[in-house]
């Protein structure tokens, strides 16, 4: 019993429970008890959650990825360019975008793994570079179905079906497709982190890189893998974002990295590396998602909302300790 509470998962649950309790109390005239409220929240947190999946692996391996928001923006623009402007079919546009995301991740990972650049610097550089690239290939414009013709007039092309499919809700509008994609991302990470050697290697490297190297683990390949996967998840998130917004916005994802890191860390994964897990990230995403949702359905004013967010985050974390 006692030891159960010491488990990080149980502690992350405690934080989530506290937030849910607040939701029960401040239920905004019952809005909190409607399934729609929850399903909206799941949809809203999904893009962040997908970023947080890759981030979890990067943090476990002892790194950090500041580039996720920008790579998301780049992917959203690229996907829209390919699918709307170039008219590529989904089975070409999606893999191409995923590839581009992975390449960005691998580029940052390469600097970290081969040239021992601090992860903070390498991914910061990727953050500004990918944002610039997104603005460059989009010409600073949102890539939507509204297209300016040579004579300056605007014309409206139809939205490609893949946008509608990915942006839709299934089960009679009760579950967003992006939420399903988020859950699949969680599953993929769970398999990598707990069922495959790769995951074991990542924990080992984050726990003690020198010891991991001495144990014959290909440290640099694993770092490449983690950052490459993070880039890949960014591309997934970017595609989801574009599908939901029906456009590719070169400003999409600005400051998402902070939210993604916050989700991972509030779940209980340590920024020092070597500890934590994807289950915690799921709980962290729910905690942050519900926290925002509860403040939002209660229409709390901007200043109060920020102050409450700060207080509740601290409260939730202290609540975790208390159970110990």
């Amino acid at each position, binding site marked *: 019993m006692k030891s159960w509470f010491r488990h990080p998962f149980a502690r992350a649950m405690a934080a989530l429970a506290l937030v849910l309790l607040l939701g029960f109390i401040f239920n905004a005239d019952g809005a909190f008890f409607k399934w729609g409220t929850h399903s*909206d929240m799941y*949809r809203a947190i999904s893009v962040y959650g997908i970023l947080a999946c890759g981030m979890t692996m990067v943090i476990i391996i002892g790194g950090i990825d500041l580039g996720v928001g920008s790579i998301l923006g780049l992917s959203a623009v690229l996907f829209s360019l390919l699918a709307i402007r170039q008219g590529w079919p989904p089975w070409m546009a999606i893999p191409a975008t995923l590839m581009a995301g992975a390449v960005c991740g691998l580029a940052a990972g390469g600097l970290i793994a081969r040239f021992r650049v601090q992860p903070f610097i390498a991914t910061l550089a990727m953050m500004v570079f990918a944002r610039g690239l997104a603005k460059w290939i989009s010409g*600073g414009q949102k890539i939507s179905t509204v297209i300016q013709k040579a004579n300056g007039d605007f014309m409206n092309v139809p939205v490609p079906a893949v946008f509608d499919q990915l942006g839709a809700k299934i089960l009679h509008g009760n579950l967003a497709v992006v939420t399903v994609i988020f859950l699949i991302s969680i599953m993929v990470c769970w398999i990598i982190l707990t069922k495959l050697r790769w995951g074991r290697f990542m924990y080992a490297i984050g726990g003690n890189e020198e010891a991991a190297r001495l144990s014959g683990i290909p440290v640099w390949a694993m770092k490449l893998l983690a950052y490459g996967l993070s880039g890949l998840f960014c591309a997934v998130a970017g595609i989801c*974002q574009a599908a939901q917004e029906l456009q590719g916005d070169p400003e999409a994802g*600005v400051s998402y990295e902070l939210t993604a890191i916050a989700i991972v860390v509030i779940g209980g994964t340590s920024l020092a590396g070597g500890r934590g897990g994807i289950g915690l990230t799921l709980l962290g995403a729910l905690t942050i998602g519900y926290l925002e949702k509860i403040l*939002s*359905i209660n*229409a709390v004013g901007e200043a109060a909302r920020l102050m409450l967010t700060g207080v509740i985050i601290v409260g939730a974390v202290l609540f975790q300790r208390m159970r110990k």
Partner: protein
Amino acid sequence: QPVSAESANPAKKWTIGMSQCNLGEPWRVQMNADVKKAAEAHPELHVIFKDAQNDTLKQRAHVEEFVAANVDLIIISPKEAQPLTPPVVAAMHAGIPVIVLDRRVVGDKYTCFIGADNKKIGQAAGRWIVQKLGGKGTIVELKGLMTSTPGQDRNSGFREGIKGSDLKVIFDVDMKWLEPNARKEMESALSRFSDISLVYAHNDPGAHGAWLAAKAAGREKNILFVGIDALPQEGQAYVKQGILTASFEYPTGGREAIENGLKILNGEKIEKEIVLPSRVFTAETVDKGGEWLK
């Protein structure tokens, strides 16, 4: 119409949902303040404000929440046209009238659009500057975020306005609406160019930042500064202080939204497109409430 049936009851309270895309800019804070002020004059109105913090999807969720809470009217100042169209359409389908403020949505599934035209304001500013400088001079343009439509329109309108004159834009950079950025960029312009006639900034804080840079270099007297937005406590005050030569109003439409909202709730017929007129404030006109642009 269920709305008109109920409006017979004078004790009826109306709930209005106001979805703001971002409260990080004074102009939008002002819009909310205008809505609030106008609504306070009508005790039967209750306005719920939501701030999407510059996040399209969050704003979409907010509209969905308003629909779920079954408000009587939605006012939305959307961050993006395309992605916010579906929730607005959904609200209309649910029988909730929607007033779209400032930025548009795609198509015509809304009750009323209220907004000013950035392109026209940019054009007016351009023409005004041509006149002011006598058709000749060097310009520094401090642009707002160029991935945003207001930035793009204030830029393209301005370029159209100065077309045909001998005005030359010698330095144009993106200062992303931020005053500290504007100051930094202006410092660079000052160290590169010894002759600058005028600074055209896409918002008043940008023009103010540029003025601060020029003042530090001791060159503020030789340069004219023009900004956009003309909020009373910012642009208009700067004009009064002699910092800006002119500031072009970009009206928030907050008051108009409430006025028209009331009409809608009371079952009156209103125009679908309301383009707000704009004013220019200069040293001569600022105390008289500016001068309306044609």
